[in-house]
C-alpha cells in the first residue's frame, strides 16, 4: 500500500447545515476505503490533531477533522479558539453530534468511499466519540481516555459535561477503549463500569488500560506521552479499524 496522501482544509456542512472548517486527508490511490472522523481534543483543532488525520490517510483511510470551534472563532489560532469556547462553556452535545454527522456525510460523498465510518477522539473527544456512536449510525468507534461518560462531573463543570452512560443501549457499533491506569478522569473504576454496562447490554467492545500511563498518553508533544502505550495503542486502532471499516 502506498502512503501517498493529499491533505487540505475544506468547508463542510455541520449541525444545522452550518458551514464549518474541516481538515481532510485522503490517500492518493483509488482503492475503496473507509472514512474516519477525528474529533479534536479540548485544546482545539491543532497541529497535533491534524497530524493524526494525516496518519489515518497514510494508512489508507479518508480522514476528516471538523473544527468544532469554527462558529465561535473562525480563522483564529487553535489555542485562542479553545480559550474562547472554554470561556463560553464548551461545545453543546447536540451540535457536536450534528458536526460529526456532517463530517461522516462528507466522507461518504468522496470518490472511493466504501460507506463505512469510524470515529475517534481523545480526552473530551473520547466522550464525544461515545456520544456520537450512541447518536449516529457508525461502524467503529475509538474512545481514547474520554472522561465523564460514566462519572458525575465535579461541581462547577459546564452543563455540556453531563454523563452519558444512559445512552449505551443506543451504541451503534463496536467500541475500542484505550485508557491509562494512572488517569483520574476517566478512572479505571469508571471505565470498568462502562465495560460492565456494555457487557450487560451485549454491546461489542474491547478495552485496554495501560500501566505506567495516565491521561493523554498519545500526545507526542506533551510530557504525558508514554511511548509504549502509544505505540501499542496505535497498533490496536489500526487493527480495529481494519476489521470494521
Amino acid at each position, binding site marked *: 500500500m502506498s502512503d501517498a496522501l493529499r491533505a487540505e482544509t475544506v468547508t463542510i456542512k455541520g449541525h444545522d447545515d452550518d458551514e464549518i472548517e474541516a481538515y481532510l486527508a485522503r490517500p492518493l490511490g483509488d482503492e475503496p476505503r473507509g472514512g474516519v472522523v477525528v474529533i479534536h481534543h*479540548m*485544546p482545539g483543532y491543532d497541529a497535533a490533531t491534524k497530524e493524526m488525520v494525516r496518519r489515518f490517510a497514510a494508512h489508507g483511510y479518508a480522514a476528516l477533522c471538523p473544527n468544532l470551534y469554527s462558529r*465561535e*472563532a473562525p480563522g*483564529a*489560532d487553535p*489555542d*485562542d*479558539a479553545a*480559550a*474562547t469556547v*472554554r*470561556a463560553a462553556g*464548551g461545545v453543546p452535545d447536540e451540535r457536536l453530534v450534528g458536526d460529526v454527522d456532517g463530517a461522516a456525510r462528507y466522507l461518504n460523498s468522496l470518490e472511493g468511499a466504501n460507506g463505512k465510518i469510524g470515529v475517534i477522539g481523545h*480526552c*473530551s473527544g473520547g466522550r464525544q466519540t461515545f456520544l456520537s456512536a450512541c447518536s449516529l449510525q457508525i461502524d467503529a468507534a475509538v474512545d481514547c481516555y474520554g*472522561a465523564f461518560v460514566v462519572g458525575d*462531573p*465535579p461541581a*462547577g*463543570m*459546564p452543563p455540556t*459535561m453531563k454523563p452519558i452512560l444512559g445512552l449505551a443501549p443506543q451504541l451503534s457499533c463496536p467500541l475500542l477503549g484505550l485508557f491509562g491506569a494512572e*488517569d*483520574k*478522569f476517566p478512572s479505571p473504576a469508571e471505565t470498568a463500569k462502562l465495560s460492565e454496562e456494555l457487557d450487560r447490554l451485549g454491546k461489542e467492545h474491547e478495552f485496554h488500560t495501560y500501566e505506567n500511563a*495516565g*491521561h*493523554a498518553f498519545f500526545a507526542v508533544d*506533551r*510530557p*504525558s506521552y508514554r511511548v509504549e502505550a502509544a505505540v501499542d495503542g496505535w497498533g490496536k486502532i489500526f487493527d480495529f479499524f481494519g476489521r470494521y471499516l
Partner: protein
Amino acid sequence: MCTYQTHKIKISGSGKAKMGWISLKEAAVYVDHPVHLQQDHSVNIDFADPARGPSARVAVELTEEAALALADAIHEAIAAAPPGLAAAGTRP
C-alpha cells in the same frame, strides 16, 4: 485529566496581545493542560476582550507555585503603594 472548570471574572485593564495593546474586559483562570509549558497541568490565565474576537487575548501558563507567588506579589505591591493609587477611575 482535564478539569473543564473555569473561573471567570470581569476586569478592567490593558494588556499586550499579538495584535498590540488591547483593553482587557475579562479574565479566565483554570487549572488544566497547558499549550506551551512542559508539564501535564498548569494554572492558566487568559486576559481577554471578547468583543474583539478570540485573538484579543493575553495568555499565561504558570506552575502552581508561580501562580501563588504571583498572587502574593500582587497583594504586596498594592499594599506597599498609597491606598487607592491604582483603583478604577483614578486619573493622574
